[in-house]
């Protein structure tokens, strides 16, 4: 998908001005609350009209102040998943799911209801009223409803922010499988770096109503390494562990990782802070940390006076965070072999 944005909009004392072109199917929009993310989304979806400018998607003009074009939201075919599920309270789950599908022209109906019900595991919810659903269930129905409208672009406006941590990471696999299965290009709006890492390939960084840059989730995580309360978060998707002495041994690269908070069945997503990795110049004889990995330094980057060390071990990468003096003492430079120690309890299971 290609999206051309060149818009201006004033709303009271807030003003938004943005000009960019994006190509990609998994685009993130990242910024603090009040930065203009949602306003941008409203402009793209046609829920607000820009004061001036042009909006084009794959060559179709959605808005042009010069040519006096302003397609209505229903003509744009851009479905939104909101922070709150926003299910229609007077309709049941099934009627909610089919709301957009019924209004979709037959030639656009590529995704069938049966397929989405299967992927989102909605079978048991179909006959329920929407007010009896849990937060996570509601959001799944909202996602299904938006996808079934067979939109040309799916906009997810902080779809996980209203959910608590455990639910959030239960929903992410659904978001991913929907996007992989049905290949709908999407914009994913969030202020969470972790969500960006999981959901986006390219990221528009928005601040104070302006475009602060086009970046990648990894780059954003690196830039925010020092400022974030828990540093750079390495995300690892691990599966099929062996349980030995109460610890989970997950295959990882050519070796394995030992994790205390594992899960017996299926894949799990783990988070590892860059600050929980200790680096050694030589192989320590004995340490309490259960993981000791021999790594090659792939890259060294600077972030706010600290050093991020990109470690490569068995074909996989991890980012560790150290202060500059430590980097000097250890003689860390790209290509150097060092040892990384990680406690089994440092891996936080997300879902």
């Amino acid at each position: 998908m290609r999206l051309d944005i060149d818009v201006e909009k004033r709303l009271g004392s807030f003003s938004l001005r943005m000009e960019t072109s994006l190509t990609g199917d998994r685009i993130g929009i990242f910024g603090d609350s009040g930065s203009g993310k949602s306003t941008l989304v409203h402009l793209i979806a046609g829920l607000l009209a820009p004061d001036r400018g042009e909006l084009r998607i794959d060559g179709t003009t959605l808005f042009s102040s010069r040519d006096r074009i302003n397609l209505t939201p229903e003509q744009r075919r851009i479905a939104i998943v909101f922070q709150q599920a926003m299910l229609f309270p007077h309709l049941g789950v099934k009627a909610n799911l089919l709301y957009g599908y019924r209004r979709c022209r037959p030639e656009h109906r590529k995704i069938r209801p049966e397929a989405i019900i299967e992927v989102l595991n909605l079978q048991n919810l179909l006959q329920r009223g929407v007010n009896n659903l849990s937060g996570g269930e509601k959001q799944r129905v909202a996602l299904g409803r938006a996808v079934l409208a067979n939109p040309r672009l799916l906009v997810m406006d902080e779809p996980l922010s209203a959910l608590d941590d455990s639910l959030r990471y239960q929903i992410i696999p659904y978001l991913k499988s929907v996007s992989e299965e049905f290949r709908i290009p999407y914009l994913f709006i969030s202020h969470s770096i972790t969500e960006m890492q999981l959901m986006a390939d390219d990221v528009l960084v928005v601040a104070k109503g302006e475009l602060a840059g086009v970046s990648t989730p990894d780059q954003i995580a690196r830039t925010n390494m020092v400022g974030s309360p828990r540093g750079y978060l390495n995300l690892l998707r691990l599966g099929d562990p062996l349980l030995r002495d109460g610890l989970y041994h997950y295959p990882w690269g050519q070796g394995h990782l030992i994790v205390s908070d594992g899960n017996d069945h299926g894949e799990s997503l783990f988070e590892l802070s860059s600050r929980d990795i200790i680096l050694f110049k030589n192989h320590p004889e004995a340490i309490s940390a259960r993981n000791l990995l021999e790594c090659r330094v792939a890259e060294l980057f600077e972030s706010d006076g600290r050093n991020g060390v990109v470690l490569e071990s068995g074909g996989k990468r991890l980012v560790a965070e150290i202060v500059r003096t430590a980097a000097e003492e250890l003689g860390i430079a790209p290509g150097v072999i060092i040892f990384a120690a990680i406690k089994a309890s440092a891996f936080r299971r997300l879902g």
Partner: protein
Amino acid sequence: MSLSPQDLTAIGLSMKIAVCATALSLPFGFATAWFMVFRNFRGKVLLEVLVNLPLTLPPVVIGYFLLLLFGRHGWAGAALRSAGIEFIFTWKAAVVASATVGFPLLVRSIRLGMESIDRQLIQASRSLGAAWYDTLATIVLPLSFRGMVAGSSLMFARSLGEFGATIIVAGNIPGLTQTIPLAIYDYASSPTGTSMALSLCAVSVTLSVAILLLHEVIGKKLENGRSA
């Protein structure tokens, strides 16, 4: 308590006028409320004042304005007469008088209902491919239902009690335009009418209480239905 055949006619007429006035006003009330809640336009304040004016204006004044409008020299009266419709001093004029006086109550209730609809529901509907009129019919209308029921019952009750505007445009003709309040007025001004007046008063109180009870019950029911 005894009711004369004339009283029964008045009760029937009152009901007929109240039902017609409410039914006639409902679509207009819905449209006005929708305009005021969902549309931005210049002169919104003016419309607001105009809609609410009958609430503060003496009904007699409204009746007089209606008389000027629909009377022999009014343009609406002339148009109706050329269409062969006799209007002033008929029950139809009482319907219009009741509708005018009760309209603000209706609009207020529907508006409250509409204002409680989350805007994002409407945005969701539009982004799912519904045109504005489709959203209006499938989202706004059903979600304003409670406000419409509440407004209708209030308006119906107000119409049953309409006096000032009605007596000016419809007169007080027994059997033709005499409603409950007008009949009570007649009894009250005759020295022997006390018990007759009290009987009609009792009917009036009963009807009002019944409507308010119904209003509460339906409101509760709809609320429970929503949250269940």
